[in-house]
């Protein structure tokens, strides 16, 4: 598990509008990479191109190359469905399936890959994923109750359990804590620290303390100007970015002078 992502010269378009311009970066396996930057700078847009989720919007398209180890995920024969089974995603708002129980939510993705899952295998996957998401102790007595009945923080951990149940190589997290209270946020941050043993993790966050706490490497995105595309300004070890940024823009942002 856990693979490296190599992006080179990636442009993201919505129709004719260039949203993100010329991003190249390497995302290391078994580490946490944080994307920071002000709202609308294209970091979430860029994140969604890493598992081709941007294609949900029919006008969105990319130019450039994204390699998952040695697989070009935009290769002509590559099925976006297969890409998403390798690269899982957790969203800003917890989105458990409202009609499903906690158990069914966790097993939903695993069932897609393996229709004839035995009851015992399914039970194992559910328990392992929920334990992995630090949720097992809280929900083990009500696995067949609706997932929507959990608290916001629990729902988000349920979504993480659901995403890890399919054993992806990479886990993308799009502001996973922005709708959560500080205690739930802490629970998720602890979880991220555990998950990086097995996964490549990319997290978009508005919260610079969070980026500093959880990530090994940080990428700073910014707009070239109003109406201009977002760009990758600087990327490096989190410590270095927050102590000795190379670019003036980065320094301005992390010291709170704008954004």
């Amino acid at each position: 598990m856990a693979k490296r992502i190599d992006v080179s010269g990636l442009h993201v378009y919505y129709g004719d509008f260039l949203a993100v311009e010329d991003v190249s970066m390497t995302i290391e396996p078994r580490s946490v990479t944080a994307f920071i930057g002000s709202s609308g700078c294209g970091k979430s847009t860029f994140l969604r191109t890493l598992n081709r989720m941007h294609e949900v919007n029919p006008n969105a398209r990319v130019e450039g190359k994204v390699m998952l180890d040695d697989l070009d995920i935009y290769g002509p024969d590559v099925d976006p469905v297969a890409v998403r089974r390798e690269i899982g995603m957790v969203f800003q708002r917890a989105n458990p399936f409202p009609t499903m129980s906690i158990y069914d939510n966790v097993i939903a993705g695993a069932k897609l890959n393996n229709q004839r899952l035995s009851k015992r295998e399914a039970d194992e996957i559910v328990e392992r994923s929920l334990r992995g998401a630090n949720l097992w102790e809280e929900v083990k007595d009500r696995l067949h109750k609706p997932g929507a009945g959990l608290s916001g923080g629990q729902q988000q951990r349920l979504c993480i359990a659901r995403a890890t149940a399919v054993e992806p190589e990479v886990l993308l997290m799009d502001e996973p804590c922005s709708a959560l209270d500080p205690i739930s946020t802490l629970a998720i941050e602890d979880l991220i620290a555990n998950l990086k043993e097995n996964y490549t993790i990319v997290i978009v966050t508005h919260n610079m303390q969070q980026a500093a706490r959880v990530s090994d490497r940080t990428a700073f995105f910014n707009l070239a100007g109003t109406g201009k595309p977002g760009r990758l300004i600087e990327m490096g070890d989190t410590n270095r970015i927050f102590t000795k940024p190379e670019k003036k823009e980065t320094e301005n942002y992390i010291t709170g002078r704008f954004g």
Partner: protein
Amino acid sequence: MTTTDSSTPARVPTGRRRIGDVIFANTASGAGALILLILAGVAAFLIIQSMDSLRANTVNFFTTTDWNASTREDPAFGVAALAFGTVLAATIALLLATPVAIGIALFIVYYAPRRVAALLGYIVDLLAAIPSVVYGLWGVVFLVGQLRPFYDALENYLGWIPLFAGPVSATGRTMLSAGLVLAVMILPIITAMSRDVFHQVPQANREAALALGATRWEMIRMAVLPFGRPGVIGGAMLGLGRALGETMAVAMILSPSLVISPFLLQSGNQTIAAHIALQYPEATGYGVSALIAAGLVLFAITLAVNMGARFIVARRKEFS
């Protein structure tokens, strides 16, 4: 509530309600109560008017199939065959229409290019605007003739299933034909309801499925259909209500006979609504009152169907 303008003293709520508010509240409650009154009035009318013939009836109303009511002495009539025919026709229509409607709705919302979807949605709505007598004409003049070869084939290959046992009616004016035309008639309402509810599936749910590596069909099964289930059932029940009560098309297509026959390809059976329409002009003696009794049964069936649907929708409320 209170203003903090320094030039005028803060306005104190007096507890008095504004006159416009009172008028509006009363009008709204009045309109709500009116519905209940109308429903109760119809029910009372049906019950009172049917009592006359039900008291005089010499046989069991619910188990008898014959209808000899247009007399002043010893009427003998029963609703058994009619109720059976009504439920049978509506069930056929529902079974045929619902899967097709769900398919059309899914196509419109998730598969069709935007302009095709808009056009198709418009055509489906148009279908709903065609009067039922036109459907009846189309059914009896055109459709039943076209269906003969299909019925023959059905009897040949599936005749061993009692439903499709022969001999096939020579005219094609059978329960299956009536059910088919009813299915076309209720298709738009079920489609429209399903389409609306499929449109409302939150993007977050659909993306959750896609992000797990679901194909489009798997996404529909995982996120769209479970979410849309109550709406689809609601649409199906509206359709069923229309199919149960539909008069003109059935009256024109079926060649009626008052028997309980499960053989869909043979002539026979009749529905309550069509029976009332056909018998009313000639009803004498206890005839009218007996027909009202049949109407009461139709009323009860429709009510039961609606309550059943509500029960189904509410049962899994915890999950929606």
